[in-house]
């Protein structure tokens, strides 16, 4: 049977405010447990919430960036459930009148097409604390530093039909919030958390299937794998004539497996009702205008500019523009390196691969865009070969040395581009290989001839101690062999 895959995303975005959504406690990451949990965060008796203006400003900026309506009179509700990381026994969130109404983002697909994904809404809410299940005499430790950190939860429509689209959408939203500066985008620290709703339906059917929600996707790679895994799991069940249970599943990226989060699905009844400790939040034109005026360049605009200013193609521009830190890094490399296309290749190639391999974000990169730009300069002016460039990159990355030219000198990576010197080496090598020269000259097929040139390159590189410019060697060879 053929299946259509239907995917929607729910994204929790931790807002980069200085303080919590309802109290003046710091939100700085990494503090000692419970040192940033004050009376309000601990739900001490009689304490009351007072909302943070910056959280609203950030939410409005997000709304404007995803072309959404801003709710002029938004309301907080209480979502009631008991859990030790939720001190009040309810989460203060928004249900009926979220701050951000329907909107959309356009995502760029690998095939060059653009797809519109609708945003259902985004609401403000408070984050929970953390439960630490290491062994405290068989007990659980609770750290409430994170409790009350402002979040926006972004809910998309189920407009995506495969993992690539879902990841593209996730990257797009990641790019938007990091460009806006409203979130640091660090998925490994949980600053941005993606939940994926997946269902299958028979190809062409209008009826949506039962969906599952997969949580705990702390990288785009895991997200892609988790979707593939869940689609396969559902397909197996359906093709065996089984039914999908609506449930929340926890994905384990290291093992590429998932499990149901609750053995017996508790009848959730959150008993939402308007929070009587908070009044309706009225957002006026002036507030929205101020937020609009403070919007920085967003990924779509940046992509257009990259194409225009650096002559990048659609795909490269889109990729580099999607992540604000990557974009800034690329621009530094391109400005310094002068050759934007080459800078783009290096940023997307060696640099990104290295970040991925070490599970680092651009912010943690040991090298700067300007350093990569210096490297690009030396590749472009033929000072080093691409093999040499990789060696320079390695030295920069490991911190062996932070100056490109110094590394080239120290490692003797400078290519010999003096034609006279190179011609002398070619003459010597050709003289030592008369048989091969004869074979070459008797060959009439230019393709085969081209292949035979490779046979001379090895000895030439050896003669030049690896420093001969291969491109020049090639030209000289062709000339000398009477091409």
């Amino acid at each position, binding site marked *: 049977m053929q299946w259509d895959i239907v995917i929607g995303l729910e994204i929790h975005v931790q807002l980069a405010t200085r303080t919590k959504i309802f109290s003046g406690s710091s939100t700085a990451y990494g503090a000692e447990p419970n040192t940033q949990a004050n009376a309000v965060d601990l739900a001490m*008796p009689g304490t009351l919430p007072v909302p943070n203006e910056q959280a609203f400003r950030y939410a409005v900026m997000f709304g404007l960036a995803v072309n959404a309506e801003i709710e002029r009179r938004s309301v907080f509700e209480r979502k*009631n459930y008991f859990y030790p990381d939720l001190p009040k026994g309810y989460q203060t969130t928004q249900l009926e009148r979220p701050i951000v109404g329907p909107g959309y983002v356009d995502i760029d697909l690998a095939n060059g097409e653009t797809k519109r994904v609708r945003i259902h809404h985004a609401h403000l809410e408070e984050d929970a604390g953390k439960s630490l299940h290491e062994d405290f005499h068989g007990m659980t430790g609770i750290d409430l530093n994170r409790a009350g950190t402002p979040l926006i939860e972004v809910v998309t429509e189920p407009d995506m039909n495969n993992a690539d689209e879902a990841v593209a959408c996730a990257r797009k939203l990641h790019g938007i919030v990091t460009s806006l500066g409203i979130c640091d985008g660090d998925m490994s620290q949980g600053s941005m958390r993606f939940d994926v709703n997946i269902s299958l339906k028979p190809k062409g059917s209008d009826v949506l299937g039962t969906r599952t929600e997969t949580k705990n996707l702390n990288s785009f790679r895991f997200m892609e794998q988790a979707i593939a895994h869940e689609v396969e799991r559902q397909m197996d069940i359906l093709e065996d004539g089984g039914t999908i249970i609506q449930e929340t599943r926890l994905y384990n990226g290291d093992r590429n497996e998932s499990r149901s989060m609750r053995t017996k699905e508790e009848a959730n009844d959150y008993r939402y009702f308007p929070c*009587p400790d908070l009044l309706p939040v009225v957002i006026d034109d002036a507030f929205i205008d101020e937020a609009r005026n403070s919007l920085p360049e967003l990924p779509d605009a940046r992509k257009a500019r990259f194409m225009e200013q650096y002559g990048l193609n659609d795909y490269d521009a889109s990729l580099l523009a999607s992540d604000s830190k990557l974009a800034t890094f690329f621009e530094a490399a391109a400005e310094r390196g002068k050759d934007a296309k080459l800078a783009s290749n290096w940023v997307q190639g060696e640099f990104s691969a290295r970040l991925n391999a070490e599970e680092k974000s651009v912010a943690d990169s040991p090298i700067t865009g300007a350093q990569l730009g210096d490297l690009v300069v030396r590749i472009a002016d033929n000072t080093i070969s691409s093999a040499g460039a990789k060696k320079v990159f390695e030295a920069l990355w490991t911190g062996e040395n932070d100056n490109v030219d110094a590394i080239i000198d120290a490692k003797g990576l400078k290519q010999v581009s003096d034609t006279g010197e190179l011609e002398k080496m070619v003459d010597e090598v050709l003289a030592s290989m008369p048989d091969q020269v004869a074979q070459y000259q008797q060959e009439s097929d230019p393709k085969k001839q081209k292949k035979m040139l490779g046979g001379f390159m090895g000895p030439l590189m050896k003669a030049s101690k690896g420093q001969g410019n291969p491109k020049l060697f090639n030209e000289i060879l062709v000339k000398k062999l009477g091409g």
Partner: protein
Amino acid sequence: MHNKSVAELSRELESGKISSVELIRDYLGRLKTEDEQLNSFITITEEQALADAHAADEQRAAGKATPWTGVPFAHKDIFCTNGVATTCGSKMLANFVPPYDATVTANFRKAGAVCLGKTNMDEFAMGSSTESSYFGATTNPWGLSRGEKRVPGGSSGGSAAAVAARLVPAATATDTGGSIRQPAALCGVTGLKPTYGRVSRYGMVAFASSLDQGGTMARTAEDNALMLNVMAGFDPKDSTSIDREVPDYTATLDEPLKGLRIGLPKEYFTGSLSAAMEEQVRSAIREYEKLGATVKEVSLPHANLAIAAYYVIAPAEASANLSRFDGARYGYRCEDPKDLLDMYTRTRAEGFGDEVKRRILVGTYALSAGYFDAYYLKAQKVRRLIQQDFINAFKEVDVLMSPTTPSPAFVQGEKTSDPVTMYLEDVFTIAINLAGIPAMSVPAGFVDGLPVGLQIIGDYFSEARLLNAAHQFQQVTDWHQREPQ
């Protein structure tokens, strides 16, 4: 000395006739012996009170006295007091010593008042008799001499009984459905529930957030005004407190009442009200006519729905407000919980009393799937109708007057078996909380030797007018000066 009002004590301290230390020693001595019968205090803070009295005398000597400097008073045990147990009348918080002050507590501290301790109350302010306190019932000083043990009303029954028995000249209180006015009426003292948002709720343990309001209790209207001067005002820590100028409530006490338009809601002069009670209230209203007021009948057509709306909204809000009492971070935790669920369910089953549990369960039910619209949403709509009734009434009159309660103080145990009977105690007071308007109870006579309260209801932020009306009444009557034997 013990019959003196806050205003009088303040003048005596100012004149140097007595020091605060002497005054506080005297009050503490009396409190410790007299309260054995009443049980109006949960905690007496003797040491702290004496230290505060010393500090107050120094302040006064330094010329930095306020009207409250060195004057004794008490806090209802619902207001958080830094370093002093704040129990809310519950086993759940029996061991709870907050490391912070409620805004109301901080305001009295700043004014230099000397807190003698924390007064008894119905558990989590849920009740009308102060019988549901984990620390035992409070007894009304009225009727004691006849050997009767009557309730002081509730939930602020400890504050009312303490003020009536002259253990303190004033005490803070809170009112969610009548918890200031009903005990004030039953104990023969004067109490004021301000407009919702007038007094900060920060640090006041929440029962029903959209109804709770801190207020005042003393023997005279003037002392209520002095208290409100300290308590009222905008608090940036309470999103529902109102940023609006606070008048000097004592400044307008002496205004004449000539031309005051009084409305009598006809719905509050029927049904459960006894003839004897009604006569006392009507006689009080005749006094107002003598003072130059005019009286007319008005109607609050939805008044009969107030109790029903209240018993959806208040339990619903309470069911969420009391979720924080889970045994995890403070307060009671059950012995040897075997897992998390066991800790939650036993802590809450053992830590809360029956009435609190009933209200949490009712509120949970009213909010649960399938019932939300029929109960909660419906109640909120009725709430608006009730509010509209008052808005309409205040287009015609300046204040409304009614009995505070349908009957005088009842005997302990009489209404504990049926929660609904107890709820009907608040039949005349509850709508005021739903609307969020201010109201007072003023001593207005006796029935069978027990005090009767006159309720005076005003429009939003009309506390000064209510206090003025009460004060003028107290210039021509002495019900508020009567002392229980």
